[in-house]
């Protein structure tokens, strides 16, 4: 009887030159961390990884975990047999028992001592399959319904598989530095977080809470969203800053139409300071150009002008409908649309300024003790490890 293995392939890392070892090592560590607690063995095999010796019933769980690790391109569940033509043949024929339609056999022979050669092996195995299932299976090498891959390795093992499961690709988390994601509880910011993890940036999250104007339920929702982003990040820390006094101060002292603009400026300042404390190199937001008043180019200019750290906006040119598609894919949509107030909606002015004039904004802001308010916000910062 053959053993089972999961073959893990990565994508872009192949493009790396001398740094490749670094990326591979990171990915390996991320996979190991993710599979911790599941009884299985993990090994490296020529530009791919192998998970073996797992219980059959853990297979789906392992696949679910692997599908959330940036840097993995595809995975396959393979049967493992010895480099022996008869054993391979038995395995291949077995795997066809529940198949119908057209097929081809694709042999890759890393072990060049193995005879016959790849073409002949494919032909031999195809013949064996037809011997048994001539009634329901036919060969079609150009456009088959399914392909049986036979991978004959140098270490005496042959992997036989049919399906290739596509994962999220991207780069291993940690390979692109560290950033701080502003997470609100809406649809966009978790998607921005996911895309950032996918490109290999390790994330922390920052949420602004406005109790009593927003409730604990709103915070619970953000925790849940952050946890979901964290699945792509190998765990995550959420920092919660109380924004109540800042909002009250702006509301009391500044013109209503600048409420949101000024709030965004405070958020960016706090984010930059926290990111620096955490060793981060960038701020990430879920802004999408023109989606709401605070996301016009004028508003972005105004909020961007208070920080020097790069602000990454993965969704800047995305349409809402495309963002929603991704949020469904990463399973954050249903949580995002739960009806609790988030900190942006409570003090929403009737007519927010769509194109805030920077000069006027700064004049309005001058009425506030900016440093003092920020200092106060940092006094009660809450850290939640997820």
């Amino acid at each position, binding site marked *: 009887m053959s053993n089972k293995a999961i073959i893990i392939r990565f994508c872009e890392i192949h493009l790396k030159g001398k740094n490749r070892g670094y990326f591979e090592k990171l990915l390996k560590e991320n996979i190991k961390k993710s599979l911790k607690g599941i009884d299985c063995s993990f090994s490296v095999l020529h530009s791919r990884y192998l998970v073996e010796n797992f219980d059959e019933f853990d297979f789906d769980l392992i696949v679910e975990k692997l599908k959330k690790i940036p840097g993995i391109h595809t995975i396959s569940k393979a049967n493992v047999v010895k480099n022996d033509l008869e054993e391979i043949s038995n395995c291949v024929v077995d795997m066809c028992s529940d198949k119908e339609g057209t097929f081809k056999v694709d042999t890759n022979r890393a072990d060049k001592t193995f005879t016959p050669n790849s073409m002949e092996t494919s032909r031999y195995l195809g013949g064996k399959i037809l011997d048994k299932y001539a009634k329901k299976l036919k060969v079609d090498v150009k456009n088959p319904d399914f392909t049986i891959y036979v991978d004959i390795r140098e270490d005496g093992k042959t992997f036989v598989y049919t399906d290739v499961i596509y994962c999220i690709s991207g780069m291993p988390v940690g390979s692109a530095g560290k950033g701080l994601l502003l997470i609100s509880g809406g649809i966009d910011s978790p998607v921005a977080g996911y895309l950032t993890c996918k490109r290999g940036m390790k994330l922390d999250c920052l949420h602004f809470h406005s*109790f*009593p104007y*927003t*409730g*604990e339920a709103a915070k619970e929702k953000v925790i849940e969203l952050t946890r979901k982003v964290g699945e792509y990040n190998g765990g995550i820390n959420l920092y919660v800053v109380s924004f109540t006094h800042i909002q009250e101060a702006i*509301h*009391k002292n500044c013109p209503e139409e600048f409420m949101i603009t000024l709030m965004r400026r405070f958020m960016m300042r706090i984010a930059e300071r926290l990111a620096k404390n955490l060793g981060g190199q960038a701020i990430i937001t879920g802004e999408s150009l023109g989606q709401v008043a605070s996301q016009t180019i004028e508003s972005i200019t105004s909020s961007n002008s208070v920080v020097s750290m790069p602000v990454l906006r993965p969704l800047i040119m995305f349409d809402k409908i495309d963002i929603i598609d991704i949020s469904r894919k990463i399973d954050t949509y249903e949580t995002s649309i739960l*009806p609790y*107030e988030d900190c942006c909606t409570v003090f929403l002015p009737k007519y927010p300024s769509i194109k805030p004039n920077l000069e006027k904004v700064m004049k309005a802001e001058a009425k506030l003790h900016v440093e003092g308010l920020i200092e106060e916000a940092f006094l009660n910062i809450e850290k939640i490890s997820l």
Partner: protein
Amino acid sequence: MIYFDNAATTKPDKSALIRAEKFNSDAFYNPSALYQGGLATAREIKIAKENLLSKIGAIGFDLIFTSCGTESDNLAIFGVVKRGTFVTDMGEHSAVYKSFLELKNRGHNVKFIGLNKDGSINEEELFDFVKSNSVDFISIMHVNNETGAINDVNSIAKRIKAINSKIIFHVDGVQAFGKIRYNISKDIDLYSISAHKINALKGVGALIKRKNLNISPLIIGGGQENGLRSGTENVFGIKVFEYASDIHYDNIKDNYSKVSEIKQCFIDNLSDDFVIISSNESSPYILTVSAVGLRGEVVMHALETKCIIVGNGSACSSKNRFSRVIEACGYSSDVLDGVIRISFSPENTMDEAIKAVEIINSTVKELKRTLK
């Protein structure tokens, strides 16, 4: 902390828990088992049924234990009448209201009767409808969970049956049982109650039904509750329900006057910032008011920081944040926005009420100043 959200749930009564404790230890047996221990617990369930039925003078009625008030309502709505015209009102709890929407989805005739300003059903509209239509099933709540309005269900049922004696009449009595003095009339076919609203535990409810009324179960299995609600009985929860109801009914008059005074204290002392929605005739256990110009949820959270717990009726969302029920009472959006529900239990004291009113008044002033 001062707890004024007793219409949501109440704190389990310690003495009832202690009295029922043996059903979590020595007397743990499955009531369906045929040995002595099992038979003894089955007997205890029977005693609980008879005792609970006696609280509302239910002679000629059976009682089916369920997992909650919602399940009881569902069993009544989906278990008796299989097709026809179903009538309820706009003020019902979601357990009834959404079940009626489901009936509508399944293609039945469904009619929602309007409300009076205090949240009680518009009786004339109901009678007119029943006179001019062939109605099969009616569901009306006894005490409205959002406004506290009391429907005189016995007299409504009597008039309904006089028009058409074949109509099945269900009452959601969840906010009335143990609180309002009441004897069920023979015109009522089904009556739902819930344990955790009277200082017993979550996870237990019951449907009281007229004897000989045919009902088909929603949950099929081992045939417990005469086959009408399968699943091993929650013996401990059932006994706590029974014992808590003993305490409530032994003191029902005193409790009623006590919470009436507490409610009156709120009505007399809440500032002009509030509009009182509950009427004087409503259940003294529930007072719904609106802090006009503020959002109810914000007021609720602000009070929470000052250790006062109140409810805000319904979950809030930026698109649909109004209470469906208060809206149906005919209030404008600025009143709807500020709704909070203050609900009482006999454990609340006058001192708590005086303190809470003061804090509620000052908190709302403060919020209005901040958000001006």
